[in-house]
């Protein structure tokens, strides 16, 4: 890392500068829109991702496919791994904390990571509560399988949502299910009479004010990415057409035959998701996709998307 002290703004005319506001946290996710965020485990992979056009990297010790294979308890990465990746690239660096593990999140904030993913890919540390994300300066992204779950996370302070999918499988079917669930429930809310929104909030188990906001705008109040099972350029473009603002790719890149080429192809297909000629062009000659494991071969205990409450 640079040893230079970040240059904190002094007082500006009018109000003093404010850090860690909702607008600053959510606005950062707006800058990632139309982009691909890639899981990386070392500085070399991080450089490949940056060179390929990733908008951010997720710094991990193991990608989800290896977490699956390795078994045991999956935790926050070693700070050395995260710092080495921060030093290697100029794009934003994200890192994962276990669901509910406030101290892992405090550690990641102190390391200066740009976004924390409170992630079901790691072993949950609390089976009833998520981290109270409001007091943090660093923004959080959280997974969701449906609209109620997304709005509960936003209520806790998440500044970005990603549909969960099923990480480390290379099977896009769960990502599709979750994107369709979120988008479909949003569309349904926009058709309700105002007095029907209260019952909808009860059914969704979500804060009424957020339900009102979604019903009025037809959108989540934060950026919505997709994750979990994206392995090909066509998968990424499909998710964009379903309404995603961008794509997380975990094991799909660095578990494939030619990671650099596949990474570039997924970036291009995300930008030109509505142009089949571009998607066709970039899909040629990519080598082996990650082998993957079909969702229906997983025992329910092996599914990660059920983690989170």
């Amino acid at each position, binding site marked *: 890392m*640079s040893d*230079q002290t*970040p*240059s*904190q*703004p*002094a*007082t*500006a*005319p*009018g*109000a*003093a*500068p*404010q*850090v860690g506001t909702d*607008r*600053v946290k959510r*606005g*950062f996710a*707006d*800058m*990632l*829109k*139309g*982009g691909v965020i890639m899981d990386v485990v070392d500085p070399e992979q991080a450089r490949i991702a*940056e060179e*390929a*056009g*990733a*908008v*951010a990297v997720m710094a991990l010790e193991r990608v989800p496919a290896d977490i699956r294979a390795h078994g045991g308890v999956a935790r926050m990465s070693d700070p050395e791994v995260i710092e080495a990746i921060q030093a290697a690239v*100029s*794009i*934003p660096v994200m890192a994962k904390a276990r669901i509910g593990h406030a101290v892992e999140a405090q550690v990641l904030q102190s390391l*200066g*990571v*740009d*976004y924390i993913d409170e992630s079901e890919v790691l072993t949950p540390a609390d089976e009833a509560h998520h981290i109270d994300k409001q007091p943090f*300066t*660093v923004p959080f992204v959280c997974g969701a399988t449906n609209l109620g779950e997304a709005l509960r996370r936003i209520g806790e302070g998440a500044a970005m949502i990603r549909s969960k999918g099923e990480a480390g499988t290379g099977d896009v079917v769960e990502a599709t299910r979750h994107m369709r669930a979120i*988008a479909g429930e*949003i*569309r349904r809310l*926009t058709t309700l009479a105002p007095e029907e929104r209260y019952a909808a909030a009860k059914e969704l188990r979500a804060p009424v004010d957020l339900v009102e906001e979604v019903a*009025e*705008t*037809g*959108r989540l109040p934060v950026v*919505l990415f997709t994750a979990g099972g994206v392995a090909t350029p066509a998968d990424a473009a499909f998710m964009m*057409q*379903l*309404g*995603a603002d*961008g794509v997380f790719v975990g094991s799909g890149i660095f578990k494939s035959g030619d990671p650099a080429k596949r990474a*570039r192809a997924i*970036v*291009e297909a995300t*930008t030109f998701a*509505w142009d089949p000629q571009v998607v066709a062009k970039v899909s040629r000659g990519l080598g082996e996709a990650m082998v993957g494991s079909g969702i229906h071969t997983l025992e329910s205990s092996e599914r990660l998307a059920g983690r989170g409450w």
Partner: protein
Amino acid sequence: MRATRVPGEALARGHQATREAARPAGPQPAAHDPEAEGPPPTVGVLALQGDVLEHLRLLEAAGAHAVPVARTDELAAVDGLLLPGGESTTIGRLLELFGLRAPLQERLAAGMPAFGTCAGAILLGRATTLDDGTPSPQPLLGALDVVTRRNAFGRQVASFEADLDVGELDGAALHAVFIRAPWFEQLGPAVHPLAHVPTSQGEQAVVVRQGRILASAFHPELTGDARLHQRFVALVRQPA
């Protein structure tokens, strides 16, 4: 050829109220009188990656016909271009990959008005450095005679919002949202600084104008205040 589409549109599709309801609160531009100023200029928003949709809305609010631009034929059809925030390395790479960098540089050299915000401002500059001042080799357009310092204020935890007095804008201070923001250094003789932020390293320029090229280190689209967009549309209307 089909027009470029913008991420997030699919989710909002079919919901007529969306565009109006989602328009952020904040000072809105005065009523626009098309007869006084002629037909609205067509202003593009570079739509390769980043915060595109909000800029399209604010440019419309400022009296322009706003269109996303991701292809050379779309670029040829605009009177001015806004380069949004996003990741400058990503957008720069996609510009090269899809053959847009050279035609864009040609149009800028021929005097096309441009407005870059954050990453877009970095792309317009002649050079850029990392936060510690070491050069950052990445594709740039070189139309604006400044050197940008990327992530100059620090990482995301140092991102901030503050009120700024901005030259050439009427009214109260502009509320500005800085996200992993750059600032402008080594301003060329034709570059006018319009706003500064005081920092521990002295006053730093965060809004600049060079002829009909405007650049801000922050994100005017995040607050819904359309005054910088209005200033840019006025520059597009102004004869070269």
